[in-house]
């Protein structure tokens, strides 16, 4: 007869005295607050041609989305989102008068909290001067949801700006999940 005892971290078992009668083993454990960020279905959202072919200004851009499934937090949490303006990667220096090498837009993270977390870029014609405070939303309960990230509301820094030619305008959206307690 073997009594196998497996001792793991966080547990303590007091060895019962071998005697007639009953003994009590108290078992206890804890779960730390944690969050898990799933893998986005698409890590790149290509919004395509940015300029109006008639006059070179910003064309209407259709919003695009991707989802981040299997994300969870086992406690209350804060979701944050921050983005950088779309900037022409090959254009060196500031664009001349009447032109921009940056396009602003709004990035939202929906499906986590009651309201979407949102951030609107505010870059100038060179992409500078963007905000640094992410848009956030907080939940008080654990959540396991698919997060939907959407880009929309594309705008040039000033109305009428023409866009400098570049095959590669690029920006980055960062989504953050953090347990709050």
């Amino acid at each position, binding site marked *: *007869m073997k*009594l*196998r*005892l*497996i001792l*793991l971290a*966080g*547990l303590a078992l007091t060895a019962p005295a071998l005697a007639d009668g009953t003994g009590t083993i108290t*078992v206890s*454990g*804890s779960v*730390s*607050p944690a*969050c*898990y*960020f*799933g*893998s*986005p279905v698409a*890590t*790149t*959202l*290509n*919004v*395509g*041609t940015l*300029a109006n*072919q008639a*006059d*070179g200004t910003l064309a209407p*851009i259709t919003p695009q989305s991707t989802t981040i499934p*299997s994300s*969870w937090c086992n406690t209350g949490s804060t979701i944050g989102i921050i*983005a950088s303006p*779309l900037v*022409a990667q090959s254009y060196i220096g500031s*664009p*001349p008068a*009447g*032109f921009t090498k940056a*396009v602003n*837009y709004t*990035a939202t993270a929906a499906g986590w909290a009651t309201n979407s977390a949102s951030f609107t870029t505010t870059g100038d014609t060179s992409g500078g001067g963007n905000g640094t405070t992410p848009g956030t939303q907080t939940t008080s309960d654990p959540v396991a949801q698919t997060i939907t*990230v959407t880009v929309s509301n594309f705008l040039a820094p000033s109305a009428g700006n*023409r866009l*400098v*030619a*570049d*095959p*590669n*305008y*690029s*920006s*980055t*959206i*960062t*989504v*953050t*999940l*953090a347990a709050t307690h």
Partner: protein
Amino acid sequence: MRGANARIAVLLAAAIAAAAGARAQSGPQTGQITVTGSVDRMCIMANPQVNLGASTNIGQASGGTVTIADLSDDQQMTTKSTDFYVTLSGMCNYSHLLTISSDRGGLWREPAGLATGGFANGVPYRATVDWGGSETVLLASAAGEGQVQQTLSVDQPVVGGVLLHFHIDQSATNAGSGVPLVAGNYDDTIRLTLGPQ
């Protein structure tokens, strides 16, 4: 309880393991998404507009045709000074080349033919173009009938107006200053393009 034959396996987990591996953490978790787009190289030019108010010796301008009121002086029978200005809006969103060209290299009689002794059949002119803060001059010297062109290299995107100034000097002819012009209709075609360097 001695004698009991029991097997107890107790497995206690200290933490809940993530199904995909140990990626769940207590600290903030971040993910990044890249947004991309593109802008094609493009140039646009509107139709030219002739500013009659600032012109001299111009009869009329309509569409893309400018008609000089009187190409020859009625006393000396040689070329009469002429000026007109043309503006057109343009845009290029990349470093580019502006080209101005003349089909015939001067205002030539149509047909040019051979001028008889003591007469001229061609009128030289110059066309000055201002664009994007730079300037170039096309000299259509009427030295011989044929195309001439001039280019202006612009190393940045530009949006704004192209300004063209057309000028004929008083008495200027292809046979020398002050030579009378053979009667007839004289013409040339000026072309402006924007394109790659």
